């Protein structure tokens, strides 16, 4: 298995080609509607991915607000490139030992899914041939690009997709690694390290959605598949692993299909509406009831291969259904899952006989109220079935929350790129590079070493702090005098358990108030989690949250009373088991303390209460 990453990190420097603020906004003051059509690039070819999107013929609606200007609406040419963004990209290039190009050429990357009002994303290659050392391994960084983020999708209903312009044009640093990553875990570590590098510039945006990863995965004999827009770093490993599994399954299916002499005849289906017109409900009836056709595609040799092989959930049937969905349908039915969904054994027999299928042959049914859409879906499904005979098709896939992915579109090619003629080429003077090289920020490795040395934290804790991007919080709170180990635990464990990403959740002052409460003995560190939860659920202040969490007013005397009560109740146990009863008593006490007192204090109190009562057992 080989994997490569593209890390996309937003910068907090305004927008890349206009003077608007680079922040998300809730206020919408107007909307407008656009239709996009693919245009041809320098060599006159229309990009396959662009043509695919345009074939769907969608109308796009855009929401704009006071924080948007004409540039984002594609009503005014782009302004000069944001100097701070460019400087950040060049700084990163130097941190990654890459070579800045001599002259930067801004390109248009055609994207006609509506996420860019112009129908293209502006992107520029800033540096080449870098590298990253991590854990004794060297990863190549072939390219570092600076590009515009796309508009934010708000709704996707029927034929209209709604985007908001707030995110459009926020600068994104794109750092690509070579295909040298060997496991999902390694992919996550590399992504974390690159994230830490971008944060080292001090210009990374923080918060949800500010980092997105594209994962390029292929297995031996497979094909490059791009999983686009993974937002949760901790899930990278799972996506990579499951994609490798999917490709392996598809290679197995290919071998089985070849052994069965499977084939795909053509791209057109056969109209079998008359054979299934009597089905009263279900997906078939939904189409026939509205006058739509039912098309059958015969797939000789495919019988039994639509289903999952043993030990996996991946299957060819889903791959084909994804194609039907991409064509605008809800799905399809394949012969391995029939009879079902209102299709009876008699229907199956009729279809099989009509298509002249033998026992080893399979078929697929596609139904829709639009004949045109059904025909398009059949063609796409047939193409995908033919690709199954070759193994793994290269494609772009969307990550799903459960760790799986779904087909989204063909892999875009180089035909989608042509120069942005509204922006002149930008030269990168050597003097500028020299200046930037002199002022490079602290690298993550240096940062980790410094934190470990100055704060006395372990390497592993420091690694977690840097990877989670909470160095600012750590430095701020330890600077206010709170113990480093406690702060590190709070910002790397309790806070992320309540809110993700951790930088979005709580103000530094709230965290400081929480640490103060622990220092003053008002709560124990075991109480951090319930108090944070109460804050997240709307408590206005830390004292109110402590109150809501039911942790208020449990004093040392209350603890002594509680321990005495538990010891009395557990007397028989203590008498019979002696020292061995400690953990049982401790457990009973902690159940009632619930984070209101420090665990060590509770243990001491229990130990004290047991000491005189428990007779030493002599050997």
């Amino acid at each position: 298995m080989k994997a490569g990453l593209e890390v996309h990190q937003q910068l907090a420097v305004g927008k890349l080609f206009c003077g608007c603020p680079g922040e998300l906004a809730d206020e919408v003051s107007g909307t407008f509607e656009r239709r996009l059509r693919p245009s041809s690039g320098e060599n006159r070819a229309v990009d396959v991915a662009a043509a695919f999107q345009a074939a769907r013929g969608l109308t796009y609606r855009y929401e704009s607000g006071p924080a948007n200007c004409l540039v984002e609406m594609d009503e005014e040419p782009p302004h000069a490139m944001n100097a701070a963004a460019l400087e950040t990209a060049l700084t990163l290039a130097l941190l990654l030992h890459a070579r800045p190009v001599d002259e930067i050429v801004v390109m248009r990357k055609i994207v006609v899914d509506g996420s860019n009002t112009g129908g293209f994303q502006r992107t520029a290659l800033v540096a080449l041939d870098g590298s990253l050392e991590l854990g004794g391994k060297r990863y190549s960084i072939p390219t570092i690009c600076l590009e515009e983020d796309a508009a934010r999708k708000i709704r996707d209903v029927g034929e209209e997709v709604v985007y908001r312009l707030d995110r459009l044009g926020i600068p994104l640093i794109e750092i690509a690694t070579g295909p040298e990553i060997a496991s999902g875990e390694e992919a996550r570590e590399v992504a974390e390290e690159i994230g830490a590098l971008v944060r080292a510039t001090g210009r990374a945006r923080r918060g949800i959605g500010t980092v997105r990863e594209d994962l390029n995965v292929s297995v031996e004999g497979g094909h490059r598949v791009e999983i686009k827009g993974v937002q949760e770093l901790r899930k990278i490993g799972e996506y990579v692993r499951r994609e490798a599994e999917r490709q392996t399954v598809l290679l197995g299916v290919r071998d089985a299909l070849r052994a069965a002499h499977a084939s795909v005849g053509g791209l057109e289906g056969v109209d079998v509406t008359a054979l299934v017109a009597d089905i009263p409900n279900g997906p078939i009836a939904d189409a026939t009831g509205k006058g739509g056709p039912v098309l059958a595609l015969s797939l000789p040799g495919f019988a039994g291969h639509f289903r999952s092989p043993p030990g996996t959930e991946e299957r060819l049937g889903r791959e084909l259904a994804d194609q039907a969905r991409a064509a605008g349908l809800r799905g399809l039915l394949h012969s391995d899952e029939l009879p079902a969904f209102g299709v009876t054994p008699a229907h199956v027999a009729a279809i099989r006989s009509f298509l002249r299928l033998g026992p080893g042959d399979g078929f697929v049914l596609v139904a829709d109220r639009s004949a045109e859409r059904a025909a398009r879906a059949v063609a796409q499904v047939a193409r995908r079935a033919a690709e199954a005979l070759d193994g793994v098709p290269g494609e772009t896939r969307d990550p799903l929350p459960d760790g799986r992915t779904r087909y989204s579109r063909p892999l875009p090619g180089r035909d989608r790129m042509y120069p942005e003629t509204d922006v002149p080429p930008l030269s990168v003077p050597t003097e500028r590079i020299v200046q930037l090289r002199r002022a490079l920020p602290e690298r993550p490795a240096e940062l980790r070493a410094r934190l470990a040395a100055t704060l006395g934290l372990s390497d592993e804790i420091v690694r977690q702090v840097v990877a989670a991007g909470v160095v600012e919080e750590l430095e701020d709170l330890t600077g206010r005098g709170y113990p480093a180990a406690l702060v590190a635990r709070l910002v790397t464990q309790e806070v992320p358990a309540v809110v993700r990403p951790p930088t979005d959740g709580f103000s530094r002052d709230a965290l400081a108030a929480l640490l103060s409460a622990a220092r003053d003995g008002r709560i124990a560190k075991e109480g951090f989690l319930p108090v944070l939860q109460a804050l997240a659920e709307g408590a206005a202040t830390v004292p109110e949250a402590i109150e809501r969490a039911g942790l208020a007013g449990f004093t040392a005397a209350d603890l002594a009373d509680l321990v005495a009560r538990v010891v009395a109740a557990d007397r028989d146990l203590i008498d019979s088991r002696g020292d061995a009863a400690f953990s049982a008593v401790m457990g009973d006490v902690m159940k009632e303390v619930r984070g209101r007192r420090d665990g060590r204090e509770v243990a001491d109190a229990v130990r004290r209460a047991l000491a005189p009562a428990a007779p030493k057992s002599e050997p």
Partner: protein
Amino acid sequence: MAGGGSTDPWPRIAALPMGRKVEITDGHGRRWIGTVVARHELSGERILPLKLESGYNIGLAIEPGFEFREIEGDRERRTAEPSPSERPRSGGPHVALLTTGGTIASRVDYETGGVRPVGGEREILDFYPELDRSGPVRIVPVFDRLSENIVPDDWVVLAGRTVAAFHDGARGVVIAHGTDTLGFTAAGLSFLLGNLPGPVVLVGAQRSPDRPSSDGSTNLAAAVTVARTALLGEVVVVMHAGLSDRRFAIHRGTVVRKMHSSRRDAFESRNRAPLGTVDGAAVSLAPWARPPTSGPARVDGPIDPRGSLLWTYPGLEPDAARAFVRGQRGVVLAGTGLGHAATAHLGWIREAIADGVVIAMTTQCLGGNADPYVYATGRDLVGAGVVYLDDLLPETAYAKLLWALGHAPDAAGVAALLRRDLVGEFTARHLVEGSG
């Protein structure tokens, strides 16, 4: 074919043709492989523009120690021109599409990095394959020019081609034109074309057609719809009514003006509401739209280009204005406010009028009337013989002046034509709505 060596490789690298694939090395192990693409006018010295395998372009500074070699047999593919699809030629009268260049018919020029006009029917149909979906469209290339390079004599040529198209059986005529001077051409054609049996629709694009979001295709479709269906016998401009690709405004050719340098809805009717709208296939027209005649269309020429347009402004030197007017038969002033020029200009104005030059006054406010009677300055100007042109836009007044100069031998005759409402160019009642 090796191109290396100890001598400076730049002259040979600079001479590489576009589309050639090359490998460049710097002698220290660094290597670039890419295809030579067009050099940008604003690129630096010794910069080779390369398209890398990834599709990205970069500029590479070629130093004397560099080496290069061409990679043979792997020339950049240039996809063949797509063959024109079989177009069902539905019957019925056609719409003539006259092309003049401009953004609406421009494509990226990779030689210069800018946009250049497309030429010929083939390229237009490549760009707008949906153009003749609702009926036949005949494409007539007339010019191949950005509109800043169109001159008044070109209006006469366009008027001739328009009349020829109607004589050829066109139901309506669409003229694709650059937007910079589209308003001037619309005004010029409004006076030059007589007895129109159908709509003459000027149309343009504000956003270049090499972007998927270009307004060119939807504007053109709306213009063709107007030309094919509207009961209209005048020169109009059809462009976006707002920022959406949904509604399009139909503007009378004499009251329309480009009011923004880049927005899709840059064109506005001044002093009155638009003449109509296009929403999908539905065209609606105001009651004051001029209906078609039974024909035949004719060119009401000629024009005399010895007229000009001069904005007055604080600091305009009377001597500079006097020199500017020399050799002209008429001058339209775009005056301040209600139509004023500084008192210091009265001298040359009186001299010019005495010499038989027509001096006409409009307002640079671009809304409302020029009116000489409110202030002493205006009374002095009108007393000197300046012809006040009410709410005519300066550009429309200029086009009308050239036309009038071609139709009357003396100043009095020109002045009389200028004051007469010929094609609905004056708006008598200025309402709150659509007052510009």
